[in-house]
């Protein structure tokens, strides 16, 4: 099995690729972010290409370790469709070639403009999206299983988020997948919007193609459409009816010359990449698996670093990587879905770390928070501290001199009796590990 992708990513720029209209197509009234250029009105011409889009595309190219081309030409790709106001889409020759990510070779990246959005049922078109800058990332057909394909897409998703190049976080990419099984020809599946969708579409396609091959039939080269609602792929066109796009250089756009200065500037603007961040965490003494789990989501890693001065790094890493991610996974949530609750999450972690609440209380609070219950975390944590653990510890040391004596004379197990007594007196609201630490530190100090 060989799988490859063509992945479209809308670039985060303020204005469109060839005009000054805003790119925020998703939260504007239909056909309000438009002008003669992105509507393709008679006489309109593309303005000079948006430099910010080129810069963002270069960031991706560099992060993927690609060779950047010196000269990029914008081509016209011709076809008729209601969302394409000029009857052609502007798409560039490769901006960069030969990169790799997660063991998959990246063939090329080029820059394109997005068409508008057409609703065939109502016959309506919204041109707000028309002209939004895109990059298309083309991979080699290097993935040999659906798992591998998914791993690649997750890595790419992570990278794009780190680079800060994604325009609309709810539509990070649009994917065309191609898949061929041995004995069959290459089939392209268009219109997949999520990684889960890719998994479903490829699984469907594998079964469909296997059945054909097992029945002694041929899998012919064709383009299919992924119908997410029905969970099936549908044939769009076969090779013989492939459209002829009549690509030609767009005479209205002077070729884009990528100078070494532009590349250097992009290189300087390159943020720390996920794998670099992971290494840094490991060098801080954090477990490799925890470090890896932390960097998966940039927002989570950012949160980790934001609070480093206020809490023990290892405890904090464990809390986020195991406890929090575990609870998130259980709820099919990402950290960015609950990012607005991050201060409460931190309160819980710190109270636990400081022994002001028990592990059980911490987990209970975290679950309530993630389940969307309206709780006042600050209040709850304060209730947990109804007993001052240290006071109780000192009290117990004073009340049980025999046990203290046993401990000091070398019977280290005696500590457990002291812990048990503290737990009893605090009615289990103290954290046993923390209590033990406190006891040890107080007992080792001979002044007590």
């Amino acid at each position, binding site marked *: 099995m060989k799988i490859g992708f063509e992945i479209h990513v809308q670039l985060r720029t303020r204005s469109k690729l060839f005009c000054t209209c805003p790119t925020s197509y998703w939260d504007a009234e239909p056909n309000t972010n438009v002008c003669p250029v992105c509507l393709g009105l008679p006489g309109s011409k593309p303005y000079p290409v948006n430099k910010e889009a080129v810069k963002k595309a270069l960031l991706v190219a560099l992060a993927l370790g690609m060779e950047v081309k010196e000269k990029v030409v914008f081509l016209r790709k011709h076809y008729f469709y*209601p969302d394409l106001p*000029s*009857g052609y889409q502007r798409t560039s020759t490769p901006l960069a070639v030969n990169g790799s990510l997660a063991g998959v070779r990246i063939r090329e990246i080029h820059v394109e403009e997005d068409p508008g959005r057409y609703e065939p049922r109502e016959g309506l078109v919204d041109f707000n999206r028309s002209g939004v800058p895109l990059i298309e990332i083309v991979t080699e057909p290097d993935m040999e299983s659906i798992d591998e394909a998914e791993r690649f897409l997750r890595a790419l998703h992570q990278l794009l988020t780190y680079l800060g190049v994604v325009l609309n976080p709810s539509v990070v990419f649009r994917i065309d997948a191609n898949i061929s099984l041995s004995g069959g020809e290459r089939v392209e599946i268009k219109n997949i919007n999520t990684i889960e969708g890719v998994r479903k579409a490829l699984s469907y396609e594998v079964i469909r193609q296997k059945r054909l091959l097992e029945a002694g039939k041929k899998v012919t080269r064709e383009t299919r459409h992924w119908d997410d609602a029905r969970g099936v792929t549908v044939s769009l066109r076969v090779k013989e009816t492939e459209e002829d796009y*009549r690509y030609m250089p767009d005479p209205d756009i002077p070729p884009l010359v990528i100078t070494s200065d532009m590349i250097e500037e992009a290189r300087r603007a390159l943020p720390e990449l996920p794998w670099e961040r992971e290494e840094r965490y490991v060098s801080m003494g954090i477990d490799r698996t925890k470090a890896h789990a932390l960097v998966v989501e940039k927002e989570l890693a950012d949160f980790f670093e934001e609070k480093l001065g206020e809490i023990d790094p290892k405890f904090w890493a464990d809390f986020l990587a195991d406890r929090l991610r575990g609870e998130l996974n259980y709820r099919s949530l990402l950290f960015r879905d609950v990012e607005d609750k991050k201060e409460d999450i931190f309160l819980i972690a710190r109270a636990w770390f400081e022994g002001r609440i028990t592990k059980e209380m911490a987990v209970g609070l975290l679950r309530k928070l993630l389940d969307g219950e309206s709780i006042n975390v600050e209040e709850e944590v304060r209730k947990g501290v109804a007993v001052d653990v240290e006071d109780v510890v000192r009290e117990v040391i004073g009340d049980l001199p025999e046990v203290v004596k046993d401990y000091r004379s070398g019977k280290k197990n005696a500590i457990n009796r002291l812990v048990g007594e503290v737990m009893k007196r605090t009615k289990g609201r103290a954290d046993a590990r923390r209590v033990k630490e406190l006891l040890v530190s107080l007992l080792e100090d001979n002044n007590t």
Partner: protein
Amino acid sequence: MMEFVEKLRSGELLPSEHVQEILEKIEELDRRLNAFITVDAEGALRRARELDRLVREGRANGLLFGLAVAVKDNIAVEGLRLTCASKMLESYVSPFSATVVERVVEQGGIIVGKTNMDEFACGSSGETSYFGPTRNPWDEERVPGGSSSGSAVAVAAGMADIALGSDTGGSIRNPAAFTGVYGLKPTYNLVSRYGLVDLAMSLDTIGPLSPDAEGLALVMEAVSGPDGKDAGVRRKLNFLAALSSFDPEKVRVGWGEGFLEGAEDPIKRHFERFLNVLDSVGAEVVELKVPPMEKVWPLYYLIMYPEFASAMQRYTGLTYGHRAEGNDIYEAIARARGEALGKEVKRRIVLGTYLSMEKYERSFHELGIRLRRGLTAEIKRIFDKVDFLASPTTPFLPFRLGERVEDPVKMYASDSLTVLANLTGIPAVNVPFGREGKLPVGMQLMGRWFEDDRLVALANVLGGEG
């Protein structure tokens, strides 16, 4: 023209009086000549009265102050129809103005109307307009040339002081020659094309038509130069300074037999006379080997057709323009185009589509691009030896209406001497040069890239010499 602008600025002739006269002239002549598709009498008078007020307040400024300007109907003027002389855009009103139009207005020009043309600029005779042919004012049975037919006729017949046209293969110079006016095709990328409806984007230019060379200089001074809406335009020239400093005794003008291939006898005779006049003003005239135009000219079609087919993709009737119904969008598009585009436009779309199809390895269009590079290099070498090139503008005189319109090969021959400038990007000007009977004759001068200012200055020196 400069003197006339001074008269308007000083208030000796009020802009509103002048515009009134122009509108009366249009009223009187245009029923027969059919140079205008839209006359904006109301807008022109309103603007003229504003200018009157500036005169009274002593604030009359602008290179084109008070001049009546006609604009070819493939150049956008906000609030006016932009028909391209096609049924497809018969009632389409442009919501914005071309950069050149904004600049003309900033300099005090008054837009009086939109002029007739060959449909989508496809033609060399002014006959393919959906709104009917334009007639030549010197002989109404003959064509005025094209495709900027209405712009040339408006200037020739005094229905406008100056006009804007567009030139892709000769569309300014050809009708300028046929109607006896000056017409400049500027260097490619000297004038912003923002707002010009495309014919062939790598060849299209916007330029002026005027009864004298000064008018060309004034318009170019006003409209040329960088524009944030056209990525290609980066340079600006000083046309007025060149007019006063130009010395014809220091220039070499070249010509060659290749420029006369296919030219009819009367044209050849006038051209000989033209070379003599060049010599008499002090220019050094040299004969040299030039590429034969009959070989160059077909190359134009390899480039123009595919670009035109590409440019025409947007006319589907779905969002604007002539709309048709269909069982699906493709049928609706096909019907709209079938119903609303003329024969020559369709011919070019079909040929252009064919020439750019990938299944033919894009060989024809790419061949055109390659050959064009070679031709440009050759012209560059020629300009190492001479400052200007001279040729007739057209190989023949204005012909009768209907005489060539059914035979594209004969029609296309009209452009055989003009396409060189478009293919290589150099500036070229038509200089009216005497008459054959009552019919005007035009001679062409071509210059180096971005030496349009000197080219217009040379044309100015020759003014009236014909």
